[in-house]
């Protein structure tokens, strides 16, 4: 029966017929059946109130076994999924931590290497124990080969940074004889020659004083004087200026330990 098509109005007497019947029936009557119906109604109301309250109070307790098993299954599944998730995240975190620490370690190694190379290349000042050697040569008999010999002796004895006068001596340094004077890397060094070398001071000075070595040569053959002093903290401050290699090109090393 559609609501948009209401049935035609019926006379008022019939319209109120239903209500009249209801009112007639609702009249209090002292019959056995009515009392029974009232009793049933009380029971129904009691049951409704009880059930509503029960439903509000109880959570899992009112559920059936099957439903409980389903809930338990769901919870177990969810927990397993979360466990999996947590494991993955933990692995990622460990990876990130070890990655950053190994990055820092690589940086430290690279920095150490950089320092070593800069000292070797003479582009940075260096300090440490070593010897200072002064050659007084008033007769100008000291030659470039002799100085070169002295440098080689120092290197043999483990000198790590060497300076002659104001010139830093590095792997590419050359010694040249210009008349009575000596040039190193195109810079004149003048008498007295002061040579500073960083290394084991004891070893260096022994190497210089060895019989038949540099000191003896200088004193006996050239008649010059030489003084050697050991120092616990010596500074080699002269710098060597690097020039871009014109021909040599580096071959990239497989390990990307970067040298900036």
């Amino acid at each position, binding site marked *: *029966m559609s*609501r948009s098509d*209401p*049935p035609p*109005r*019926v006379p008022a007497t019939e*319209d109120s017929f*239903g*209500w009249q*019947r*209801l009112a007639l*029936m*609702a*009249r*209090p*009557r002292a*019959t*056995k*059946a*009515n*009392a*029974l*119906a*009232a*009793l*049933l*109604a*009380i*029971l*129904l*109301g*009691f*049951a*409704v*109130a*009880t*059930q509503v*309250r*029960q*439903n509000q109070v109880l959570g899992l307790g*009112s559920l*059936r076994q*099957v*439903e409980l098993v389903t809930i338990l299954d769901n919870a177990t599944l969810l927990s397993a999924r979360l466990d999996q998730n947590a494991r993955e995240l933990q692995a990622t975190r460990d990876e990130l931590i070890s990655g950053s620490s190994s990055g820092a370690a690589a940086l430290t190694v690279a920095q150490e290497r950089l320092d070593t190379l800069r000292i070797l290349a003479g582009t940075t000042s260096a300090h440490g124990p070593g010897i200072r050697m002064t050659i007084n040569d008033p007769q100008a008999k000291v030659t470039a080969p002799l100085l070169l010999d002295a440098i080689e002796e120092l290197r043999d004895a483990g000198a790590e940074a060497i300076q002659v006068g104001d010139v830093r001596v590095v792997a590419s340094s050359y010694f040249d004889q210009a008349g009575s004077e000596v040039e190193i890397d195109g810079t004149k060094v003048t008498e007295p020659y002061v040579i500073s070398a960083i290394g084991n001071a004891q070893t260096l000075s022994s190497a210089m004083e060895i019989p038949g070595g540099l000191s003896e040569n200088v004193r006996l053959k050239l008649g010059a004087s030489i003084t050697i002093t050991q120092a616990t903290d010596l500074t080699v401050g002269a710098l060597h200026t690097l020039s871009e290699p014109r021909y040599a090109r580096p071959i990239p090393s497989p390990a990307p330990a970067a040298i900036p």
Partner: protein
Amino acid sequence: MIPALGLLVGLAVGLFLHPAVPLALQPYLPIAVIAALDAVFGGVRAVLDGIFNDKVFVVSFLSNVVVAAFIVFLGDQLGVGSQLSTGVVVVLGIRIFSNVASIRRHLFRA
């Protein structure tokens, strides 16, 4: 009138005493309540149809409750308790709706 008052009294008693439902009855009480509601609406409809009978009402009320509870009990024994109680609720709900529709037509002519 008296049964309507009885319903209110029952509700009040239930609300104030808030008794605990015995564990064995817990699955059956909601179904029984729905069945009883169906019987009540059926009774009102019968009044409006002019065929109301006290005895029929009482018997149908009790039998509705008992049968509904029994069906759920049977379902529980067979392992389909929740599905069967859903089915019972659906059937009783449809009956309640059709009864209410009939009552409405009687009272409001619509």
